[in-house]
């Protein structure tokens, strides 16, 4: 449908959101991502039966960890949709984008920039479909 959505979303393909590891999410923040979100099947309609439930748990876990270290738990989110719902995909991208813009850059990135005396490079968040 070619619905436009914010330009700073980058998609990484995985077979199932259940494949996404906590390490993958945390590594993104360590390397300076401002946000990460997972987009999976509707709950109850997972192609692999329960992968999206596991993904949601892992997102919640990541939220707790990021909250604890001061990065901010809200920077990780889980979304669900069916393959026919292109408008929802675009809507989620907008929602996430607005959320991250309101939160500002990843504090780790700011700290690193301050440490190196450089301006932080603008970077995107990434989504995982």
């Amino acid at each position, binding site marked *: 449908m070619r619905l436009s959505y914010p330009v700073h979303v980058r998609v990484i393909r*995985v077979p199932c959101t*259940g*494949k996404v590891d906590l390490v993958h999410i945390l*590594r993104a923040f360590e390397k300076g*991502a401002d946000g990460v979100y997972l987009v999976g099947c509707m709950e109850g309609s997972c192609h692999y039966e329960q*992968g999206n439930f596991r993904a949601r748990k892992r997102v919640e876990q990541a939220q707790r960890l990021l909250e604890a270290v001061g990065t901010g738990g809200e920077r990780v989110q889980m979304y669900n949709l069916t393959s026919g719902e292109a408008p929802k995909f675009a809507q989620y991208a907008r929602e996430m984008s607005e959320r991250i813009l309101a939160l500002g850059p990843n504090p780790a990135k700011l700290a690193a920039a301050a440490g190196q005396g450089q301006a932080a490079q603008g970077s995107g968040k990434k989504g995982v479909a």
Partner: protein
Amino acid sequence: MRQYPRFVDLAKCTACGECAKVCPIGLSNEYDAGLSLRRAAYKRYPQAIPGAYAISKLGQSPCKVACPAGISVQGYVNLIAAGRYREALAVIRQENPLPAVCGRVCTHPCEAACARGKLDEPIAIRDLKRFVAEWEIAQGEMDLPETKPPRPEKVAIIGSGPAGLAAAYYLALEGIGVTIFEALPVAGGMLRVGIPDYRLPPRILDYEIDYIKALGVEIRLDAGLGRDFTLASLQEEGYKAVIMALGAHHCLSLGVEGEQTAGVQPGVEFLRRAALGQAQAPGQRVVVVGGGNVALDSARTALRLGSEEVTILYRRTRAEMPAYEEETEEALEEGVKIEYLVAPKRFLSQNGRLLGVEVIRMELGAPDASGRARPQEIPGSEYVIEADGALAAIGQEPDLACLDQTCNLQVGPKHCLQVDPLTLQSSLPHVFAGGDAVLGPATVIQAVAQGKEAARSVVRLLDGADLAQGRQKDWQAVEAPQVKAKPQARRRPPQADPVERARSFGEVVGPLDEEAARAEASRCLACAGCAECMLCMQACLAEAIDHGQRPREQRLQVGSVILASGCRPFQPQFTGLDYRYGLNPNVVTSLEFERLLSPGGPTQGHLVRPSDHQEPKKIAWLQCVGSRDLNQCGNGYCSSVCCMYAIKQALVAKEHAHQDLDCAIFNMDLRTFGKDYERYFLRARDQEGVRFIKSRAHTLWDDPADGGVRIEYASSDGQAQEEAFDLVVLSVGLEVAPEAAELAERLGVELDRYRFAATEPLAPVATSRPGVLVCGSFQGPKDIPSSVTEASAAACAAAGQLAPARWSATRSLEVPPELEVAGQEPRVGVFVCKCGINIAGVVDVPEVTRYAATLPHVVHTDNGLFVCSQDVQEQMKQKIKEHRLNRVVVASCSPKTHEPIFMDTLRACGLNKYLFEMANIRNQDSWVHQGEPAKATDKAKDLVRMAVARAATLKALPEKTVGVNQRALVVGGGVAGLTAALGVAEQGFEVVLVEKEPQLGGFARRLTATIEGADINAHLDRLVERVSGHERIQVLTQTLVVKFSGFRGNFTTEVIVGPGMYERKINHGALILATGAGEYQPSEYLYGQDPRVLTQVELAQRLREKGAGDLRAVVMIQCVGSRNDECPNCSRICCQSAVKNALHLKEADPELQVYVLYRDIRTYGLMEDYYTQARQKGVLFFRFDLEQPPQVEAAPEGLRVSFLDHVLGRPISVRADLLALSAGMRPQDTDELSSIMKLARNQDGYLLEAHVKLRPVDMASEGVYVCGTAHGPKLVGESIAQAQAAAGRAATLLSQTELALSPVTSRVDPERCAACLVCVLSCPYGVPRINQEGVSEIDEALCRGCGICAAECPAKAIQLNWYEDDQILSQVEGLLEGVM
């Protein structure tokens, strides 16, 4: 077979959609049930397969066919409607270089043919052409077309009228040098000197001549043929061809006495002098003789030059006048007088001065050769009209005095040049002719058309090509469409005041303004679909569009035909009952409502009603529109699907609504008879608050206050009710489309009374013609699961007949052995696709390509217009070999559609296909960030960097294969199991059939006949005989399954075979479960206590054995053991059992009283006819509620059954000799079996299929299939269909000798495994197990590749191939490189 053209080459189309973007034609979008518009160049919906676009073309529009020049009128009209004026003009100029001229003086045959004219008035096509031509003039800049590179040849054109100018234009486009020779001192021919300025202002003609001259055409004025040059001299000057466009400038004489008198002059000469500024008023009182345009033009010009009184003399009546109606009208307005039915006899003069003309009255006689009435003089009716000037305008012909001996051209009748009608070639091969010189005095547009065709002939001559080939037009004007467009008046251009304008040569008719023009253009009905404007051809960089495609006839040699032509939704506008459909926009069909709810629909899933786009608060569904209705529409059957879809729509609507939404479903019987459907209904009613109203609405009113609808109905107690709703959904049924029925008839297949394919009850997919099979709703109305089941059944039946031919027409692909890349340094090649302008129009592709070259491991980069095209794929293969690439990245579109293509390319080069990665810079970038090209380019670089980083980490993943044991095991020896066993065996595979009982036959042994009357036992006997005697089927009775292991293609089942109880191991590749179900043993209504209480099955047996002679009254109670708290689902078969037995009772004794106490009668599909029959025969049906069930008392004289009658509202008590309980079904033997074989079951204990709709006979475990009542309650015929389906599905597996296993599976590193069991517990399919070494092991044949275990494993001992942690992290790190 006749295949209708798509006009798009499937092999070349990349589905980029550029054709749809430029297409000016908007058509009703069938996919959105007409609620939105689509282009004529279109893709039905985003996920359509094949993904290529198509063009809807019904034929040619009548306007185009009527236009002598064949202009795509519909094309430019619609472009004007869209405000795309530049393109509109270009479309006109494809066929006519004189839009401004023709926009004024064309005789517009297009308008006479216009389909809109049949509705109200034709489109004002000529005015629109003028509008758009003037738009360009007002812009002040000529939009010149591109011409081809110059050629050395030059061509001479004689005459600069419309034919000469058109010829010059089209030759110039080809790069050919053109010189026009014009005898007069001015250019334009008759346009200049024949048409007065008030109709065609000189500035307009000048503009169009300048436009043509701007292409390099030279016009030599004062150069007359025969006077200043000859054909021979032209040849000497090097002109390779000549086009004679001389026009018809010679005026015919009247042949009347006194014609030579001064003051009498030919009209054409008068007009010419006037145009050249050399004429004066021809007199004070002027007569003009003639009724054509020249006569009218002469008369009006005379007025403008100062003549006081001008009278036209015409010898016929106004109806026969050849002049254009509008010109006659305008002339009369200006004061010209016209005398009809008079002819001049002689001109009277004195001293050489004209005094007048003696005329004679005429009358109309018999028609002449031209079809017009021949005028005849009325003797003695002569009289004199005084005049001092006269103009004779009775016709012209070509002036061929210029032809000398060197011009040896053949001349035909009326002094016209004789040419080939198609090629316009004269008797001299290099000389062509067109326009009035060939046609005699004709129209501008005909002259243009001939000039253009002459030019095309000349090009062919110069190219040495055949002049005629392929030029015969096969155009077919479409019929005017049956549309209900609102009548809309045609827009009319302004006209100058008649008194004022008659005194000047200023233009009489003004232009349409922009608003009027666009509104007028919007009236076009686009009746032909595609307008052939050819804009799509220019837009399609892949050159996939081919408007030359024609229907193709093909002959296919096949052994079997499967009819799956389906149904169409009932069309409520054609019913006698007034549903307000089509009259009130807030009455929609269920299909339209479905689209309103769809995220991909016209409102993107926003629930709004059509009239005001407000969210409705109350919605009503009216069931049985076009079903169960013999009176209004003749469809007596039940459509089977509407109750369920109405409930679904109500639930989805409630989800979409932002406020409380009231949903009411008006129904006669609620028919949720499918597997687990009743639970769905209960959820809707009890949890979601959907209202179910037992009534058929009888009257609908528009609610003028808010556009809603008021529904009048009778409640179940007979009270009149009325309720208002914001939106009404008509639950339209299914019916056979006429074309589907006609197709079946052509195939010699019998149809039933409703035109569904006739089938026998126990052979559900076989038509009346052997070899022709049927499936889906064309067999009878049914839902998706049943249709999909029947589809597999039909495939099985066909494959059984064709088994010997299996694989005989298959070709296999040879690929080179795979190269070893392990341990090698990655050498990545990056190929960036432009996708025409889809990517390159937004993303800077050369920049991304340059950037890719700077990335680590990248040794080659390239970009292409369409990387997926055949030629680029070949180049890619060369580059892979040339640069010894061992990883490939393509930056283009979605791997969903294109990954397999590129993987094949890798494989063809000896590379493992998993050494490939795609960056989706189209769907995820250029398409969705069109407004931000710089950022999109940055994103494309990121995506390419991520892909390259991942590519470097990829490993070759060899695909393994496992052998398939080509034997099936069937568990259960009832009708389903027997049918399935036979289905598999007849396809050539071995079968082992196990049955726990000593005999085959199952529950069907107890059944007598189907409702249609087919003998079930006889069928069963034949089936048992065939199975028992089949060489490939081994039957094991008294056999129990005890152990089961393996995976698809390689199962092992252990059984105990009685009575000896010996153990046996069966190896098999597929498993079919057909364990059946039994009848519920009721505990209610005195069953088991009183011998007069039977089940329906027992009643049927009793009737067969003892008949009904001793019976006077029988009561039946429905839903015993179904639809209650203990067993909420419907048992599907019981209503038909009751109706069947009731009919048998009535047949035995019409006086016998039969009472059926029911909750909803669910005689779905074609069985509804039997329900109707039963009522006609006097069977009495009484509805009861679950809360108030009937009471049964036993008494010596009979059973007494009491119940509450809803309509009468009072209790009724009847005596019965027998009480038949419609006992539901209960699954059998699924308990133990499901634990042995790890099978999923639903809450009732029926086996659960992999996907309710799309995989109705597959179990979740691959290679395991289910059929018959083990899957859910169903009729014998339905069990047979499902059994055939299971056999068909099993055969797709068994027919392969080996299976390729996907290498994208999880594997365990035993060194790191702590045997913590996390993987064992987390795998949705139970694949990991702890092996003898005490570590986890994952069978790659069973693993589905989801990667859940890999993510869960705390020791990171599990990796999923192709998605290893390093590979995913490489993308994360690649993306965020340099951020910190």
